């Protein structure tokens, strides 16, 4: 009996910090934000309950435009990260020898240890008009004048792909490492060419890794702030930037909270659709990595 009481006490003591953390820092803040987003300002210091802040989003085409732009670029970034990262992961998991494998993997992780800010700063130094790439192009004589590569969508996409790349490579590599080489060889022996083997054997096998990589990358891209603002310039029209404007610049917290919720709902929706389409679940994908 005493032992059971002690067990209960331990359970409560262990559960308390977890509960405090989740309730005070995750649950209550989101409820608070939800309540705030449903407050309408009818006069100074007078508020009413209603969905006006959300309706604003649908009434003003500019907000729609920015969210769909954010979503579109995020999908492009996710797709590019997958296309570029897949061969790299395959090389690390299947082609590299045991010694170079570890070194390559560590090498790929280096940017992860460096702050987002420094990575974006590095791209600014490379891409801007007085930057390294423009300088090298002039030096080789390919162009005669400085070229500005910064402050456009392509720069934002390059910077974002760079930032999220590792979160694609890590789950892909760990999935591919579990694949038996014999499966690929069997595919070849049965007369398949490289493309058929890739499409019918390797990709289906790597699907859980692909889905989890894509989900993490999409969430990170859609929720990013630093890279689009620094590489895209002041008017890069990223949705998180709109949220920042509402909160800090215009001090319109009610509509900022509503936009925050819209972003959260939207990204969750995309992730949910992705999971449904690929027949995976959140615990098999995100929790694994």
């Amino acid at each position, binding site marked *: 009996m005493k032992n059971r009481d002690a067990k209960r006490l331990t*359970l409560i003591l262990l559960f308390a910090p*977890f509960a405090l953390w989740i309730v005070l820092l995750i649950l209550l803040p989101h409820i608070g934000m939800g309540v705030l987003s449903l407050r309408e300002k009818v006069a100074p210091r007078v508020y009413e309950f209603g969905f006006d802040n959300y309706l604003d989003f649908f009434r003003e085409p500019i907000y729609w435009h920015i969210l769909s732009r954010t979503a579109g670029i995020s999908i492009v970034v996710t797709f590019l990260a997958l296309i570029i990262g897949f061969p790299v992961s395959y090389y690390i998991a299947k082609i590299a020898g045991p010694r170079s494998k570890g070194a390559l993997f560590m090498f790929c992780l280096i940017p992860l240890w460096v702050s987002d800010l420094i990575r974006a700063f590095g791209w600014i130094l490379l891409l801007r008009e007085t930057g390294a790439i423009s300088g090298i192009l002039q030096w080789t004589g390919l162009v005669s004048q400085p070229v500005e590569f910064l402050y456009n969508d392509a720069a934002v996409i390059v910077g974002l792909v760079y930032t999220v790349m590792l979160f694609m490579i890590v789950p892909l590599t760990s999935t591919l490492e579990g694949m038996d080489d014999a499966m690929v060889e069997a595919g070849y022996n049965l007369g398949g060419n490289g493309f058929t083997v890739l499409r019918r054997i390797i990709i289906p096998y790597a699907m859980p890794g692909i889905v989890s990589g894509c*989900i993490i990358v999409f969430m990170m891209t859609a929720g990013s702030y630093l890279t689009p603002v620094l590489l895209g310039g002041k008017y890069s029209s990223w949705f998180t930037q709109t949220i920042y404007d509402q909160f800090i610049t215009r001090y319109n917290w009610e509509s900022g909270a509503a936009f925050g919720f819209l972003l959260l709902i939207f990204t969750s929706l995309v992730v949910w659709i992705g999971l449904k389409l690929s027949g995976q679940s959140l615990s098999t994908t995100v929790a694994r990595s």
Partner: protein
Amino acid sequence: MAMKSGNQAYLLGYRLYMAVFLIFLLAPLVAAGTFAFNDSVFPSLPWKGFTLDWFFGTSEPKLGMFHDRRLLQGLYYSFVIAVSVAALSVFIGTCNAFLFVRSSLPAKNFFYIIMVLPLVIPGVILGISILVLASTVANFFDDSYTIDLDFLRPGIVLVVLGQFSFVATITSLVITARLRKFDATMEEAAYNLGASQARVLWTVTLPYLRPAMIAAGIVAFLVSFENFNTTLFLVGSESPLTITMFDRMAKGGSTPVLNAVSFFLMLGSGILALVSVLVQRDKTVR
């Protein structure tokens, strides 16, 4: 191995692709680091010779980072914040590891998913939601009781709480993974030798977890140090380093002192990364 049937040219092309990819990975880091040593007031080509002024220069226009008051202040605040976040997160991560591996918690899988959730909420949203709640509570106490709860206004405390809200998930995952691999016979042996529960925890289980706790602490420190999105909304007058650097970058036309800071930070995280790898290696020896 799998590509044995492929020809040499194919493999060569593949290697070339990997080389290009690695250049892509390193290029911006090299650019951010090297210009710290360029003897010019702009972080750009042409190369004007080697200098250490951007670290140690004492006067404008070549004010080095170790004499730049605001950068040093930012570094100090970042350090204080990161140490607090790391300590809190390792503590709660260890509690969570025992909660999820050892205890008889009902609906464990459900709570586990809840625990992972903060990692998939965008950092911007975590920042504003905590800002909203803290301000609401602070306003309420101010209006109703005229008590000024200063720590709930944007500032270091809120920054720590905001970063902790998702860093705790990372440390929990790392420490939980380690505890899962624990061989229960080691504890049983200690019990058989007559050790009390507290003593077993202190002399067997916690030492086993120590490499994971140190590694998780280092990761938490770095993630906190580098965080921007969540911090942005919660920051008060005491700006951590990333915010100070961002303000200068967004204004543009900064001197290479920012490169010096970048180099310094890369060196710092490199050393910490190495330490965490060495600590983790301990695991295989055991």
